[in-house]
């Protein structure tokens, strides 16, 4: 077993689609939010929406770390990268995320800033060792999935006693973002959540319990393969039909109730909660992001370089904030596919392949065209 191809079987998907049609009550609508960008990408890539009945609608959520990073934090990183002594290490998705006035790390690099794309946090450690005369800063972003690798990197920096290495920490948390979506005055109605796959391998299923218990929302944690998604949607439909609201785990081959305890311990020892953190599209959310604990302050780039917080307004023509909250679809934005494409992104949802706009541009718009032709 390869744990990928088996979960992309067309025949099984057809059977699941039949089961979904049989279970979905035509007299009601089902509105499920897939929180995670990985799921958004899978839905678009495999055309899953075409396999669902019209009354089952998937709403794209804000779980794409690149998409929710506000322009101000990009500007802060850009200013850091432009310092002569700094080598800024970033994950590739970050290079084209728009900051203020059309700026990006890619443009800063073109102007001469030393920005390096890395695959792994450990690549940043190697760069710090190879460049003792430079200040190596790792631009850490992501949800609970990418935080443990940052923790491993910090442990390695400590062990090697690197004095030229720091972290610009932007790690965020899934449950507070789900809470912000549910508590917002202008969010679409949601009948249930498809819970994130790899975030849940780390945090487990327990953190979602309040959404089921207190908010009455079914949650089904799903893997990223198309059959995983289809099964999770079927499980959500069954919960809605039965009037149940529970946390169910479809991705049992990788997710347990208590998650990866070693990763949870490492993260808890190194990071603490920020009071507030600004999210693109969701505003400032309390206790929704992490910073380094005082014991690791010497590795905190914000302290070492006396970085001050920048808050920057998004382009007013860009609908990313509404798209991130499920209020609008990519095609509802007048910039979509004209001024804003993956090559020239105006908004963050067009940058990462997991962003709702990029996924729809790459896969969905062709189906839109087919549908228009058919009608």
């Amino acid at each position, binding site marked *: *077993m390869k*744990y*990928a191809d*088996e*979960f992309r079987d067309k*025949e*099984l998907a*057809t*059977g*699941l689609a*039949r*089961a979904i049609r*049989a279970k979905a009550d035509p007299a009601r609508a089902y509105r499920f939010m897939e929180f*995670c*960008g*990985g799921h958004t*990408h899978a839905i678009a890539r495999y055309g899953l929406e075409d396999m669902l009945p019209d009354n089952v609608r998937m709403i794209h959520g804000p*779980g*794409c*770390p*690149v998409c929710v990073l506000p322009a101000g934090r990009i500007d802060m990183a850009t200013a850091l990268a432009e310092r002569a002594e700094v080598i800024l290490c970033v*994950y590739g*998705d970050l290079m084209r995320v728009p900051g203020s006035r059309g700026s990006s790390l890619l443009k800063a690099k073109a102007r001469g800033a030393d920005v390096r794309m890395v*695959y*792994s*946090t*450990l*690549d940043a450690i190697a760069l710090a060792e190879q460049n003792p005369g430079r200040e190596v800063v790792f631009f850490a*972003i*992501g*949800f609970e*999935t*990418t935080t*443990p*690798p940052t923790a*491993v990197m910090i*442990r390695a920096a400590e062990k090697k006693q690197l004095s030229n290495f720091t972290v610009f920490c932007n790690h965020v948390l899934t449950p507070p973002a789900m809470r912000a979506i549910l508590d917002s005055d202008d969010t679409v109605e949601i009948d249930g959540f498809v819970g*994130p*796959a*790899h*975030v849940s*391998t*780390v945090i487990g299923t327990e953190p979602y319990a309040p959404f089921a218990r207190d908010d009455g929302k079914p949650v089904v944690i799903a893997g*990223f393969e198309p*059959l*995983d998604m289809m*099964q999770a949607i*079927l499980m959500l439909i069954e919960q809605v039909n039965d009037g149940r609201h529970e946390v169910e785990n*479809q991705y*049992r*081959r*990788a997710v347990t109730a208590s998650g*990866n*305890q*070693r*990763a949870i311990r*490492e993260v808890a020892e190194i990071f603490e909660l920020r009071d507030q953190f600004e999210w693109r599209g969701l505003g400032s959310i309390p206790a929704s992001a992490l910073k380094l604990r005082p014991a690791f302050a010497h590795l905190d780039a914000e302290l070492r370089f006396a970085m001050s917080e920048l808050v920057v307004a998004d382009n007013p023509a860009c609908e990313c904030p509404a798209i991130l909250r499920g209020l609008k679809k990519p095609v509802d934005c007048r910039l979509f596919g004209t001024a804003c494409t993956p090559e020239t992104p105006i908004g963050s949802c067009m940058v*990462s*392949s*997991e962003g709702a706009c990029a996924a729809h541009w790459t896969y969905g718009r062709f189906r839109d065209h087919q549908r228009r032709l058919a009608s």
Partner: protein
Amino acid sequence: MCLAIPAEVIKLLADDMAIVSIDGVSKEVSVALIEEIAVGDYVILHVGHALAKIDPEEARETLDLLRQMGEAVAEVRP
């Protein structure tokens, strides 16, 4: 960024590192976040780190369940 891929552990190295194979492509990754790891295990790989082991029994059960779900409907609909 959140996309992660299943990979097979083919060799354990020093300092919590391992060689994994992704459909025949080898890569050196960190296994520092996994409690107990052995050659032959499949892991979820994300930005150069193994995040979780894949349980083969659970994977088989999920596939069996997927088949049953589709077949159940096929049986009741001629």
